[in-house]
């Protein structure tokens, strides 16, 4: 059928055309602005950051932006590095790997970025890894926790580093705490609910592997795998109820975890089983969940009391004063990355050359509010971050939301990580 009565407005009057032309001209001038070949001394050192600023995980990207900008502000206010200031350029890849790859190239080629902080989630970080390998561009991955990104020699690149958690480290820590808890309570039957994608599967497998290692009588009786960003978990919750496990593990994160907790509470799930949720400890998650259950074990993400030091408290205050969003796990990881970059630049005398930066960063140890004993290290052999806070806390209903941090000793983690690498043929 045709609806001709609502007459379409024919064509355009001249004014609209002129306005359009003016807009086109404005865009044109914008384009002639690039490609910008800037590479002089005393110009700012540009740090390119592809990340996710729209869609369901925008909060994580925004907290990364806030953290990076805040660290850069502090460094520049203190006089910069060898007289040069730092400047960050952000791009929204919407989490799409090919967009992340293209934007990384653009950041280097057009914006003249000399350093890349890859603030992408797992999927896109592998794409960025290939780009910086190809371009021989110094890069630090700041958010991808997938162990194989740096552990698998296939993915290792001489000038690429990682300044964030790694699944295997959390798995060892989680396994140790969980084994202790289940042994005390005499629990054996586990169920898992994790998002159905690479991170979710690898993380859950690693966690259960270590629970089984430390508590051999453990048995996984059911696994349920909701899709990433699935809005409704009712069918998964009832699947868990049907199986009647004693303990539950989940690596759901962000809004998905919030929805799962609220929906599971309707069924009284957390009154029935002991639960471990590695990603529960992020502030935006904890504050968003309305029926916040007490007594759930939560992996350490970022918390102002973990570690409970004046430096960490000060970092939290400074971040909050300069950010619209709450700090997340991504926030501290990106802040740490900026600190590593600044420290490496000091060692190279402000030269951002890829090879010099790579040499300066390998094995670098910095003072940091996020480290055990106040230091963080990027390990020389596999270019990944160590000595950060690993462990589990227990939730309470009100602030500070989590208490009783059970910290895992890094000596334990190193031991089991080495075995894990051997098992997987990585070392």
């Amino acid at each position, binding site marked *: 059928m045709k*609806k001709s009565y609502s007459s379409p407005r024919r064509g355009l009057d001249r004014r609209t055309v002129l306005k359009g032309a003016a807009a086109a001209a404005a865009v044109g001038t914008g384009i002639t602005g690039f490609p910008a070949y800037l590479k002089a001394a005393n110009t700012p050192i540009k740090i390119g950051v592809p990340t996710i600023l729209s869609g*369901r995980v925008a909060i994580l990207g925004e907290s990364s932006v806030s953290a990076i900008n805040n660290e850069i502000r502090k460094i520049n206010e203190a006089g910069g590095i060898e007289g040069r200031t730092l400047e960050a350029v952000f791009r929204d890849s919407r989490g799409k790997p090919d967009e992340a790859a293209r934007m990384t190239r653009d950041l280097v080629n057009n914006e003249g970025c000399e350093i890349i902080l890859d603030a992408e989630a797992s999927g896109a970080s592998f794409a960025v890894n290939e780009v910086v390998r190809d371009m021989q561009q110094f890069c630090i991955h700041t958010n991808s926790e997938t162990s194989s990104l740096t552990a698998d020699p296939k993915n290792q690149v001489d000038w690429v580093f990682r300044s964030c958690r790694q699944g295997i480290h959390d798995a060892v820590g989680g396994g140790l705490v969980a084994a202790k808890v289940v042994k005390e309570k005499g629990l054996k039957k586990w169920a898992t609910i994790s998002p159905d994608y690479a991170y979710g599967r690898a993380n859950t497998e690693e966690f259960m592997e270590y629970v089984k290692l430390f508590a051999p009588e453990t048995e996984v009786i059911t696994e*349920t795998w*909701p899709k990433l960003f699935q809005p*409704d978990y009712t069918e998964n919750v*009832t699947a868990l109820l*049907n199986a009647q496990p004693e303990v539950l593990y989940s690596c759901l994160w962000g809004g998905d975890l919030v*929805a799962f907790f*609220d929906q599971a509470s309707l069924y009284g799930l957390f009154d029935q089983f002991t639960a471990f949720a590695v990603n529960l400890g992020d502030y935006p998650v904890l504050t968003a969940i*309305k029926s916040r259950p007490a007594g759930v074990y939560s992996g350490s993400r970022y918390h102002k009391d973990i570690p409970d030091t004046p430096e960490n408290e000060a970092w939290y205050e400074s971040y909050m004063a300069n950010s619209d969003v709450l700090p997340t796990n991504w926030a501290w990881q990106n802040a740490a990355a900026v600190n590593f970059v600044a420290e490496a630049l000091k060692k190279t005398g402000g030269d951002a050359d890829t090879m010099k930066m790579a040499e300066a960063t390998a094995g670098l140890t910095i003072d940091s509010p996020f480290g055990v004993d106040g230091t963080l290290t990027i390990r020389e052999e596999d270019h990944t971050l160590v000595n950060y806070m690993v462990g589990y806390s227990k939730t309470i209903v009100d602030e500070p939301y989590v208490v009783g941090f059970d910290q895992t000793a890094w000596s334990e983690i190193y031991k089991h990580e080495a075995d894990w690498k051997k098992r997987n043929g990585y070392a």
Partner: protein
Amino acid sequence: MIDFDALAACLSTSACLVNQATSGLIIGMLLFLVASGVTLIFGVLHVINFAHGSFYMIGAYFAYTTYVLTGNYFLAALVGAVGAGICGILFERLIISRVYGQNLLMQLLVCYAFILIVDDLVKIIWGAEYLAMGIPAEFRLPPLRFAGGFVPPFYLFLVGIAVFIGVGSVLLVTKTRFGKIVRAAALNAPMVSALGIRVNVYFALLFGFGCALAGVAGALAAPVRSLTPGMGLGILVESFIVTVIGGMGSIPGAFLAAIILGLTRSIGSVGFPLFVDGAMFMIMALVLIFRPTGLLGQGAVR
């Protein structure tokens, strides 16, 4: 790929059966509310509202804010529905009515543009954080036990409202004066308008009503699903599957298809957890191949 043992074990225990059947119904009913709006608008106005998910999001956010301000969930649900409805009327008058009768792509594009704009506006107004309303005090009750299965009282309310609204909207279109005018206008607008009836007003109202249905769904989902910008996209795709399977334009068809889809999801999560999405698209493809008009749709398509 299919775990028959788990499936058989579940289908033979009453607890599992009750749990999965009710969870299928719950998922299905929210889908039905959104899809019934899509199908209603298509059935009468012959435009496909690709932006329908945005009204679901608008309903959820409006309900959230109202609940935070007043603490009254029923008022919040009402505001969510009416707010989405008003936004729908504005959208129809200002944007969609300009592409009536134009090709499908024009409709698709304006809707896509609208989705982008609304998602960004929501991010500007409410922030990018996940928000959660939480279960209203009235419904903070332990789950009911039924043949060994669990049924939360809030979900009973949700399913009841959805069925009530579904029946109501069928009656609205088939039995009331409003419905008759709208349907007549859809068939022959100049004729109806010659009778002194302002058809544009009726079209806008119908469009708004369809969007209000999505708004109700959003308000009903708000207590249990997390609110984020872009939350409308997931349900949009699923509601299109429902609309197509049920038959474009058929509300009873949407109801049937929503239940089929809900059960596919809930049974699938036990029997073939890795292929739930694939199964949904497979059903859609099969229906389109063998009965393009959908299960309960009418009319020639070839």
